[in-house]
């Protein structure tokens, strides 16, 4: 695959008109990173599992919230271990853990992607505005960033969710509203040095307005760190969502999600190892895959960080 691409490049070289953007160079480096590519495959598999969750339910014949109190529990009312009917065992209410893990992937990925997207959009726009416009805008936004970064996030998140009641929307909003500050701080720092660059002055000398300079000239130059930060933020968000669920503030039951499943398993970990192992493994594999991939993205976009 890689060699084929290089071959084409060699043939095209004399009249290569398409410029090699820093972005495509980074992609090329990323493609050569084996660990990152394996992680990407794992991520794709998890996404497929989430999309195909109903297939899991259909194949096993167990809807995610169906409680099999007869065949799914031992006579003492304890969860059953992995067997022919329940491949990964059952939970304390006799539900199929495999199917619930597949459905739980939907929640984790959904929250991970949406909350990260909100975080990044707010962070980039406010960071751009603070760094580029300066003056009173910067003063206010810089204080706001300080405030958000000083607040004990998890405590306030728990308190907020306990006031509003748990729901998907609240989880996403809480995470988004508290995480943007670090993105904004990164972007602001970058923009502060970018706005002194001569190409910004050049744009101004051509008659470009603030908004155009911000989004056409400055923004492309902060994209790389933002992409790196975004890929590394997704696993953090997924863990945060699971943590809220673990503390009983995730999604109202019986919706299956990983943090909630692990929370329910707490009282059974001495008797039913599969109850905690499989949801825990799902969560760990997901965050690990995202982190390894993010690490590869960072090295690809900032080769300096990994030079010898």
């Amino acid at each position, binding site marked *: 695959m890689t060699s084929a691409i290089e071959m084409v490049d060699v043939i095209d070289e004399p009249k290569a008109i398409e410029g090699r953007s820093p972005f495509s160079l980074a992609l090329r480096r990323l493609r050569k990173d084996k660990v990152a590519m394996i992680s990407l495959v794992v991520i794709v598999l998890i996404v497929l599992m989430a999309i195909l969750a109903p297939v899991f339910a259909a194949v096993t014949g167990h809807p995610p919230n169906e409680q099999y109190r007869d065949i799914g529990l031992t006579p003492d009312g304890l969860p059953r271990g992995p067997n022919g009917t329940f491949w990964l065992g059952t939970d304390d209410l006799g539900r199929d853990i495999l199917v619930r893990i597949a459905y739980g992937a939907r929640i984790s990925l959904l929250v991970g992607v949406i909350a990260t997207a909100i975080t990044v959009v707010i962070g980039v726009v406010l960071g751009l505005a603070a760094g580029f416009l300066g003056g009173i805008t910067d003063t206010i936004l810089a*204080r706001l960033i*300080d*405030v958000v*970064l*000083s*607040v*004990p*996030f*998890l*405590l*306030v998140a*728990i*308190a*907020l969710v*306990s*006031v*509003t009641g748990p729901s998907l929307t609240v989880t996403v909003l809480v995470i988004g509203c508290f995480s943007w500050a670090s993105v904004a701080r990164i972007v602001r720092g970058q923009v502060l040095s970018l706005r002194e660059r001569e190409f910004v002055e050049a744009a101004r000398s051509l008659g470009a307005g603030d908004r155009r300079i911000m989004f056409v000239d400055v923004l492309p130059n902060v994209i790389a760190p933002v992409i790196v930060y975004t890929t590394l933020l997704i*696993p953090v968000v997924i*863990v945060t969502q*699971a*943590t809220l669920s*673990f*503390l009983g503030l995730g999604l109202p039951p019986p919706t299956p999600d990983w*943090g909630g499943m*692990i*929370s329910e398993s*707490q009282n059974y*970990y*001495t008797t039913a*190892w599969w109850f*905690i192992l499989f949801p*825990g493994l799902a*969560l*760990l594999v997901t*965050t*690990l895959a*995202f*982190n*390894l991939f993010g*690490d590869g993205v960072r090295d690809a976009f900032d080769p300096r*960080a*990994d*030079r*010898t």
Partner: protein
Amino acid sequence: MAMFLIRRIGHGILVLWLISVAVFALFFVAPSNVAQTLAGRQGTPETIALIKHRLGLDLPVWQQYLHFLGNAVKGNLGYDYYHQVPVTHIIGQALPITVSLALGAAVLWLALGVFNGVISATHPRSLADRGLTLFALFFYSFPSFLLGLLLLYFLYFRLTLSGFGWFPAGGYAPLAGGIGPWFQHLLLPWVALALLLAATYTRLTRGSMLDVLGEDYIRTARSKGIRESRVVVVHGLRSALTPVVTQFGIDLGQLIGGVVVTETVFSLPGLGQTAVTAINQQDLPVIIGIVLFASAAVVVANILVDIGYAVLDPRVRLH
């Protein structure tokens, strides 16, 4: 320097004040039925009104806030709704536990992170480097509750089952009762916390160490024939540690209000768990007190880091 300190402290106070306003508004605007709970099932509207009056909940929110602020400036964060214990007293009781947890873990994660980082940086792209990076990322990816539960499963449950009752299931033993039990109760939480945080320090040390080892003065030191280990530790590590120290200060500050999960999993009644209990009981004065206290810890840590940075690195201009 004095001007810088004053401005920095001024910013800190401003930030804390903004947080107090935000937190107060949030919790007092949200519907609360504390009075109802306190009055019990048989509470008549009169008793509820009386309780509300006693707690000051019948006043407009802004008056409640001014009252709170006036007391807070004097160092009084109010009293909890249920037993009328001063919030400062509650914080005072929980703080040593959180601090024990944070500091002990800090020793572990610093040692682990810096050691691994130096090994990685001195052998870049080697098997050891890759292995250590993977090791760090693996634990970094762990949700803290999952790591805590796993440690409990293997090192408490499994070991105890096999007859080695080395670790308790959780809880806290004050230092006053002897260093042994204290250590025994905290070792697992320390490990859980340290493994999570070590990754950041491994990466930070590795990166800054690689930068420093590429500098001219290191090459000069090597060319003078100084032993490699001495070059790395004495000449390299000293300047490479500046970003590590920065991160360390910030992390310590954040841990004061940020070890909620570890405290919950290991049943340590520190600030985090106290806050969670208060949240479940809608005990607003306690929640606000702890949130503000934890924020103050972050603000103070940041100021200390800035000062330390300026002292360590004379190139930093204070303005």
